């Protein structure tokens, strides 16, 4: 009896060992595989199109190489999480991936990204990239870790019909915050059922709240979130309070959407798909990619939007120089630090970002070109009537301070806006809460009063 028990036990043990050895093995020496991770959603397929094209081109040119495209179907936040989880372990880390510019620095700190300097030296086309855009892929050590795909800017998008009906002279060019309020009140007086001027607020819209609303205000006061020179976070600024007070005015006078609508994470879909096309909204602050939703094949096709929509730079607080303000983000392609085939992976990256592929991607996703040859291409400049306007904003645009602490700080800003528009805190109190939160996150030594 005992012998049999021992035998059974050893059989089970053996089976366990065999099973453990059954983990996915190496793909074989003769053929090489490149894993590519990127984002694909029903409203964002431009990258998928581009990578499919690059895959065909690359596989034809390199016999025996398989490009394994692994689209991740998720919104920006969840995509970032899934990517970070995959990058944590070398066995799941992709060779090439789509990376948000504002995550580059913290992912370099984590050791996820491969330093590209030695590869870029041998790539002639690198010189065609815009210097400002190149900086987006640079980390604290001065090395470049990611190659930009495109960038974006933010501006005011307005419905010409709504403004015209309210007697506003077109093209509308607000010079200060006061101009915005005056026009919004005019629209409201003319037709109370219209939402005159929307700006996102609260945690529901996440980064949209800060990128497409609060930072336009804050950076237009001359203040900023982060002092690049000293590497410290700004607290106690008058500009921060003024910005909150402006949002409060917008929401209190019902010039923007209702607070309940603002806190719904899906509110932007209504802005693009319902309110602006149906002339139920006067204006909103949105990214340069806005036309990609309305053009043919976009998520919210709007025939004739070119005639109905106008674009204007977001003004500074009192119209002080440089007169306008914008925020930029953008995405890059990066290589995994643990990639077994870094040279092959870089070679694929250069195929994916060659002139032809860059041009079609930039046009399809309404991005702002980062390659000078693409930027000068008539196909890009005439993609929609607004390309020139939003591209010009690159001269006044700002970038987010992309440190590892940033996501928490951003959440604290979103909380401050939420507290103000729901009326639970005054702008003064909310700004004080924000200061306390920032001090708590980074420590008093890394803050500066300005």
């Amino acid at each position, binding site marked *: *009896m005992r012998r049999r028990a021992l035998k059974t036990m050893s059989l089970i043990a053996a089976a366990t060992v065999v099973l453990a050895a059954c983990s996915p093995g190496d793909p074989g020496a003769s053929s090489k595989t490149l894993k590519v991770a990127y984002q694909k959603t029903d409203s964002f397929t431009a990258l998928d199109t581009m990578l499919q094209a690059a895959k065909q081109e690359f596989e034809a040119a390199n016999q025996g190489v398989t490009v394994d495209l692994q689209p991740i179907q998720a919104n920006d936040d969840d995509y970032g999480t899934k990517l970070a989880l995959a990058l944590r372990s070398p066995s799941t880390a992709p060779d090439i991936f789509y990376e948000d510019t504002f995550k580059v620095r913290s992912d370099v700190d984590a050791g996820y990204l491969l330093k590209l300097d030695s590869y870029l030296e041998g790539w002639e086309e690198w010189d065609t990239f815009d210097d400002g855009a190149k900086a987006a892929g640079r980390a604290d050590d001065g090395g470049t870790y990611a190659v930009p795909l495109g960038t974006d800017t933010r501006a005011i998008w307005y419905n010409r019909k709504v403004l015209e009906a309210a007697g506003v002279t077109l093209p509308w060019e607000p010079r200060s915050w006061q101009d915005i309020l005056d026009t919004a009140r005019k629209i409201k007086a003319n037709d109370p059922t219209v939402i005159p001027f929307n700006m996102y607020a609260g945690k529901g819209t996440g980064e949209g709240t800060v990128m497409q609303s609060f930072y336009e205000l804050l950076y237009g006061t001359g203040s900023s979130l982060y002092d690049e020179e000293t590497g410290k976070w700004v607290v106690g600024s008058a500009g921060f309070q003024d910005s909150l007070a402006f949002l409060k005015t917008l929401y209190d006078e019902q010039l923007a959407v209702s607070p309940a609508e603002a806190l719904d994470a899906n509110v932007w879909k209504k802005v693009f798909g319902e309110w602006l096309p149906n002339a139920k909204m006067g204006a909103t602050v949105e990214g340069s990619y806005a036309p990609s939703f309305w053009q043919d094949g976009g998520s919210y096709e709007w025939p004739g939007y070119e005639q109905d929509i106008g674009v204007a730079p977001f003004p500074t607080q009192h119209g002080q120089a440089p007169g306008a303000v914008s925020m930029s983000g953008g995405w890059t392609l990066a290589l995994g630090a643990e990639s077994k085939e870094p040279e092959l992976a870089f070679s694929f990256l250069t195929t994916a970002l060659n002139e032809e592929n860059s041009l079609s991607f930039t046009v399809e996703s309404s991005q702002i070109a980062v390659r000078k040859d693409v930027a000068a291409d008539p196909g890009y400049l005439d993609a929609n009537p607004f390309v020139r306007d939003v591209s010009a904003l690159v001269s006044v645009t700002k970038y987010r301070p992309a440190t590892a602490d940033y996501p928490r700080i951003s959440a604290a800003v979103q909380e401050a806006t939420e507290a103000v528009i729901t009326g639970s805190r005054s702008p003064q109190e909310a700004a004080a809460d924000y200061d306390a939160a920032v001090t708590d996150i980074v420590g008093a030594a890394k803050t500066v009063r300005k």
Partner: protein
Amino acid sequence: MRSPATARQLLRYLPVLPAVLLLLVFLAGPVLWAFHASLTDAGLTGRSARNPSWVGLENYQRLLADPVFPLSVLLTVVFVAGSAVLGQNLLGLTLAVLMRRARPLVSAVVGTTVVAAWVLPEIVAAFAAYAYFSGDGTLNQLLGGLGLVRQDWLYAFPMVAVMLANMWRGTAFSMLVYRAALNEVPAEVTEAAQMDGARGWQRFAFITLPMIRGSITTNLMLITLQTLAVFTLVWVMTAGGPANASTTLPVLAYQEAFKFGDIGYGTAVASVLILIGAAFGLGYVRLLREPRP
């Protein structure tokens, strides 16, 4: 040298060995990993992503100082007590009792309707509930049609909305458990009580309830643990907002670990959740063990 008797004793455990191994790997493993991670500064990105360092109880100290944490514990308790222990449990019992009296057709229709919510995948149920409660959702259209005041449910009463949604989704489970339990109550006991002059509610309170006590406790335990872990429903409907007014512990853990990339802190929240679940579990097991009257 062991005696043959001990060996046979050991052999008896052999059939459960695979199950125990699976439990260890897939249940105990992640739990231990979470406890371990909660004592480090592990992150999703940044310097400590790949080589987290030991920080001891720092994450738990931060948790105690975090103003959101007590609110979150309170909301979790309210959520579990309101939507599971009271809502699903009582509603399920009531439905089960009424269905025994109803005509077969009515009983079948009600049963199917209730179970329909339960067989939906959680994400689908969550979107359905979102569509029902949202600003221009079904509920407001119904209220508007009746000439009543429309409400922004997810904004003004986020907890009420997610609790109702969880009741809608989970009642079927309790109903099924109680239907099975009620069928097991022998008719002659009830009849004997009737002969002794016990009225309807007396028969229910003094005969039926004590006889299905075991099922009640089991059901309570299962729905409590299930509701403690509800994440998708809350995340899709309110994402914890507005202003943290519906941030239950699973939502808080997710936000900290994945939105802010602070896995150490997030797992600390998750560890507290595990402890709360364990406390509930122990309590119910105690109830189950008490000698039957």
